[in-house]
Every structure is written in structure tokens, then in C-alpha cells.
């Protein structure tokens, strides 16, 4: 079942007097329980696309449909994890998770309980009253994840969520994200991740969407048919075949422009 449709999205930026086309007619859809990765060279507009899906930015033309309803502004059902975490330094881990719920008008005891619960899910028990300043990068991203999940989103958007972490931490966190995604009792249903790391994309996604550099266009799609959990398959030829396929498409996208 399709839950989100991206329909002919175009985006332009004005640079002084000239207009630059950033996204050119991008269309795709996301199904239930799907992990989709957007990969492309830097500056191809993949982060912009993610922001349009979240409702943070407006498309020049085209639209986003979530359960057949157009998305024009941020909604709690579509939540996001940021590259640099976006935590408030003046709030503790627990308060950071609670705050968006407070904005939504959740009762005090309820939000404290929910925040606690998600802190447990991201394995940060005992860090409730720690400030971001005293957390490591990986821990901060766990808080970021817990904050997004606490709103029970159907779709989780991730803007290069692991790219500011060291590889070992990133690996652990990828596992954690997938673990939470697989847990049927917990949100989210589907995830859209922006990445420039092809191997990461193949490791995480059901489908990898490849974009060309400016103007950003979809140049192809690779379905990843590797059984999960994929940890057992990362050394097998099937994994590398998929990686090669994505890289080949990226190269082709480069030549077109």
C-alpha cells in the first residue's frame, strides 16, 4: 500500500537575479513498511527534497501526498532526524524529547512516560538529566531519534543521520534504527533516508533512488533484494552487486549533465 506520493516536484532557487533549477520533476512513492534511500552527488537537491516532503519547504510546482492528503506544512505523522541532531543545548535529554509533545498539548505525565519509554528504546537509560553538551555524537543522535519517535510518526525522514558520526558509532546506530523499524509495536512504518554513502544505502534500504547532480532528477532505482538482517550478507557478492549497480547509475547520472 502506498502511503506517500511525491508528484512532479520542481524547486528553483533565486540567486540574485538568475533562477537556478534545483529539482526537476521528481516523482516517486513510498509504500507501507518500506525503507527508501535517496543517494546522489552533493548539491543534487536530495536534502531539499527531504525538506519539501517534511513540509519545511515549499515546492515550486508539484505536490506531496500523504494518505492522499497534500502536505503543505510540517505534521507530526512525518517526523525527522537531523544530520547535526538539532538538539536544544539548554534542555536535558528528557526535556528535548518531551518538548515537541508539549507543543502538541500532550499531558505532563503522559509525555514524561513516553519520553522515558523512548529513551529506553534507544538504550539511553540513565541519561535523562544529561545535557547534550555532555553526550557523545552517537548519544545525541539517539536522543534525536527518540524525540522523533515519541510523536509516533508513520514516516521517519532522515537527513544524512550518520554522516557526522565515526564509522563504528554509525554502524551501531544503523542497526538500532533498523531494529526499531522492524519492531511492529513501535513507529515508524516507513523511512526515507538521504545519504551519500552508497554502501550504507544498500545496507539499509529496500529501494535506492539515484539522483543526478544539478538539476536534481531521478535517474534510476535499484531494488535491494538482500534478505534481512543484512549483517550476514555484507561480505557476499550479492551485496557488492547491488553497490556496483547503484554506483553505475550515479556515474551515468553524472555523464548526462
Amino acid at each position: 500500500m502506498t502511503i506517500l506520493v511525491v508528484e512532479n516536484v520542481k524547486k528553483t532557487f533565486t540567486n540574485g537575479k538568475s533562477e537556478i533549477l534545483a529539482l526537476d520533476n521528481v516523482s516517486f512513492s513510498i509504500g507501507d513498511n518500506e525503507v527508501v534511500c535517496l543517494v546522489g552527488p552533493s548539491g543534487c537537491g536530495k536534502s531539499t527534497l527531504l525538506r519539501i516532503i517534511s513540509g519545511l519547504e515549499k515546492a515550486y510546482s508539484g505536490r506531496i501526498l500523504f494518505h492522499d492528503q497534500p502536505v503543505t506544512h510540517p505534521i507530526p505523522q512525518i517526523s525527522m532526524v537531523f544530520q547535526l541532531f538539532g538538539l536544544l543545548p539548554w534542555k536535558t535529554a528528557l526535556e528535548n524529547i518531551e518538548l515537541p509533545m508539549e507543543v502538541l498539548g500532550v499531558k505532563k505525565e503522559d509525555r514524561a512516560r513516553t519520553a522515558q519509554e523512548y529513551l529506553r528504546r534507544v538504550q539511553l537509560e540513565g541519561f535523562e538529566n544529561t545535557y547534550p553538551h555532555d553526550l557523545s555524537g552517537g548519544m545525541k543522535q539517539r536522543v534525536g531519534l527518540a524525540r522523533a519517535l515519541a510523536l509516533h510518526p508513520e514516516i521517519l525522514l532522515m537527513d544524512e543521520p550518520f554522516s557526522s558520526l565515526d564509522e563504528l558509532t554509525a554502524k551501531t546506530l544503523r542497526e538500532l534504527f533498523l531494529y526499531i523499524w522492524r519492531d511492529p509495536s513501535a513507529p515508524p512504518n516507513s523511512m526515507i533516508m538521504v545519504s551519500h554513502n552508497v554502501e550504507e544505502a544498500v545496507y539499509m534500504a529496500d529501494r535506492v533512488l539515484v539522483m543526478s547532480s544539478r538539476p536534481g532528477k531521478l535517474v534510476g532505482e535499484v531494488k535491494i533484494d538482500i534478505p534481512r538482517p543484512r549483517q550476514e550478507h555484507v561480505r557476499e557478492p550479492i551485496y557488492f552487486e547491488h553497490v556496483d549497480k547503484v554506483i553505475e547509475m550515479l556515474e551515468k547520472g553524472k555523464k548526462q549533465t
Partner: protein
Amino acid sequence: MGGLAVLCVMGWSIMTMSLNPEAAAEAANLPFYTFSTISRIVITLVISVVWGVFFGILAATNKVASMVLTPFIDLLQSIPILGYFPMVIGFLFLLGPWGIELSVIILLFTSMAWAIFFGVLGAVKSIPTNVVESAQSFGLSGWRYIRHIVLPAIAPTVVAGANLAWCDGWFFMIAAEYIQYQGKVVPPPSGGLGYLLARASYFYGDMPFAIMLLVFITFIVVYFNILTWHKLMERASTGTFKPIIRMDLSGVGKIGVARPVHWFHFGSIHWPKTFSIISQSLRKYSRIEKVTAAILAFVAVFIALYLQSEHLPTLAMIQQGFSSPPADELSRLPSLIFLTMSRLTIAYIISLVVAIGLGVLAAEHKRLSAIIYPIYDIGQGVPILALFPVMFLGLNKVFGTPEIALELTCITMLVLDMIWYMFLNVVSATKNIPTEIKEMAELFGFKGFKRVTHIVIPFILPSIVTGSILSWGTGWNTIIFAEYMPSTDPSIPPLSIPGIGSLLDKAGYQYGNTVLLVFILGIIATIVLFMEGFIWRRLLRKFEKYHIEI
């Protein structure tokens, strides 16, 4: 060109305004006075730039120089500039007319130089490590290193700092050109606009004349800002590796010039960076450095006393100082300090509230900013010290009681003086909220009041502290001037409201009691340093955690 024409017309109308014959004779000197004031400020500017660049680079690159210079200059600029004025001129007056001119320039220098020094210091220190390292790996050193790396890197800061110094110069001009020494007014031999304005309001009490002059001066300041500084700023910021210089500030207004703002205000690179420079400068001094600074300050005081009396201060001299007027007021010292502190506190709270309100609105609302920024632009062009006599004249007419008028003038002046620092800091800090935090706030639905209390205010708190330090610093400078009103007639004693600022003025201007002057300066310096150590530094350290790493 149009501006020049307006200037000429304004000048002509000031000269031909119907005045009493004596005042008219003085007003006829306007073109010459304008020329002498401008050249005075330009000369001081050149000296300040050369001094600031030289010592700034020295202090930033040489450890020993930094240990001696930085805390000492920090101390000098945090005690009220107007305070040590009489000490300097007492000595220089012995040199005749040139001495008077020199003392005006020295006073201007002490109000203009710090901006450039601290700007250069910060800019040299924030040259990116990779640039420094690559320069070293290519063997650039000595003069070539300075010529190819340091000077281009600091150029934008120097231009911005010089611009601030220029505004500062105009700000203090009225105090510098209307020198009172031992109860007498000593006019600079070549006159000046500040002198003319002071005459118009103190001596002639001619309100329309004073207002016209004030508008004339403001116009010159704003006109020069548009004409020269803007272009210079644009040119200086291209071709350097940190082109963001002053971008925030020029965003603040079309004329975009910061008012008499002290050093780091130059809007150097990023505001967070600016912030970190000040917090460092507050924290980094070791005990040795503080002791060095204190010793140097003592030496300076002794030299000043020595120059005054031409022999080292003896116990008898100090005793004499403490027994001659206005020593009789020393018994009321605690209440005088309390009164001055209350004025400063009231003005501080008013400017804090107004600046945060307007600053956040201006930074967050596009439409409101279209109204607030132009007001800011013109407001910061007005040399506020020059406003003092004009405002007093006006309020005195309204209330009829000079004391109430002076009290109100004093607090209004303080507010007008303090508010720009706060406003500028609030605006640039609000504009500097990282995109991700803004996106996060929007994504999770923070709007209106919730956005301000949860996101904006906590984020700008460190900048508010920085702004507060500046506000209090400039407040101390201003209150010395604002608690004391020179008389319009030599036979009438000057008007003053009780406070430690007016006590200082009496000691300096009225009685020429250097011993007492130094003593009161010491008290003020102690209060300033005490507040810095016990309030601001603690707050800065507390808010350090709020810094968002990008």
C-alpha cells in the same frame, strides 16, 4: 553630491539663523569649526589605526606582549574613559595651545583605539589554522607572513573597527572639545563643532540653534558612513577568506553602521565567534597576568600623579587631597554609589526589555524589520553625548526644576546609550540561530510565544550577557558626563545630581583634586571589575553549554 548640497544649505541656515549678535559671531565660524573637527577625528583615526594594528598584531603573535598588553588595555578600556581625562590635560595644558589640541586628540584616541586593537587581536587569532599551517609550510615568515596572510585577513576587521572608531570619535567629540579644567572652560584654539554645540546650549541656552547643530552633526556622520564606509566595507570583505565580516551588521540596516560600539562589536566574523572571543578574554587571564595588569595600572597612576605635581606623591600630598573639597562628600560615598548604581540599573533594565523585544521582532519579522532598522540606522548616527545639553534644555522647560530635568536626562541618556549594544547583540544573535535548530523548531511546531521562550531567548542568552557587559561599560562612561551639567554662567556653580559620577566630575573639573580623582576612579574600576568577575563571568560560564556546535 546631493548630500554635500544639503550640508551646505544646512550650514548656511545655521550661520544666518537669527541669534543674538555674540552667538552669531561664533556661528560664523561654522565652516572652519566643521573642518577642524573633521580633521581632528581623521588624524586621531589614523593614529588609532596604526596603533591598533601594530599592537593588535603584536599582542596576537607574541606571548610576552600579549601577557602585558591585553589585560592592561582591557583594564584601561573598562574604566571610564572620561574619568582620566582631567589628569591628562592638567599636564598637557602646560604646553600651551598645541597642548590643548593634543589633549583633545588624546581624549579622542582613548575612546577610539580600543575598538581597533581588540578587533585586530581577535581577527589575527581567528585566522584558520589550516591557512597558518599552509603558509608556514611554504616558508612564509616575518614581514612576508604579515603582508600576505595577516594583513589581508584582518583588513575587514580593521575597516569595520575604524568605522566604529569614527562613530566613537563623534560620540565623544562634544566632551573632548568642551574641556573644563579647574572650573574654567578651555576652548580648543581651532574651535570645533562639539565646542560650538556646547556653547549654544550651555552658554547661550539657545534651543533651536542647538537642535540645528545636532541635526547638522548627525547628518555629517550618517553621510560619511554611506559615502565611504560602506564601499570600503564591501571592498575589504571581498578576496579574504572570511567574507562574512559585518554581513550581519549590514543586514541590520541599509546604512548599516554600528554606533559607538566598542571593540568586538565591530561585528567581526561570526557572532558566536565574537562571543567566544569575549568569553575567552574574560576567562583566559591567569593570575600572573592579572597581577601584571594591576602593577602596570598602579605604575600608570603614579606616573600621572608625578606628572601633576612633578614629584612623587608623598603622604602629605595624599592627605592634602583627602582634606580639600570635594572630600567632604566622601562620607556620603555609599549612598552616592547606591544612587549611581540605581540609575544604571534602571536604565539597564529598560534597555534590556526594549532591546530584547525590538531585537527579536526585528530579526524574526520581515515586515517589522522594515520599520525598526531605519530607526536604528538614524538613531545610531546621533552622537548621543551631544544630545545631552539639548535634552536637558527641553526637559528643563517642561518641568521647571533643573534637578528633575537633569535626573530624567541622565536616565534617558543612559538608556539611549545602553540600548544599541543590547539591540545589536540581540538582533545578530537571533539571526545566527543555526538553520537546523530553526528547522527543528518549525518541524515540531514551535510558534509564537513557545518559539521565543524555548528557542530564541535561551539561544541569545550568551549574547545578552555580552551586550550587558558592553552596556554597563558604556553606561559608566556616560554617567560621568550625565550626572553633571556645566553652568551657563561662570558665576553660577555647575548643576549636578548626587552620584559617584558627579563626584568624580567635581574632583576633576571643578576643584582639580587629582588625588581624589584617582581614588574615585579606583572605586569605579573596582565596581566594574567586581561586576565582571562575580556576575558576568559566572553567567558566561553558565551559558557556555548553550553553544551549538556547527
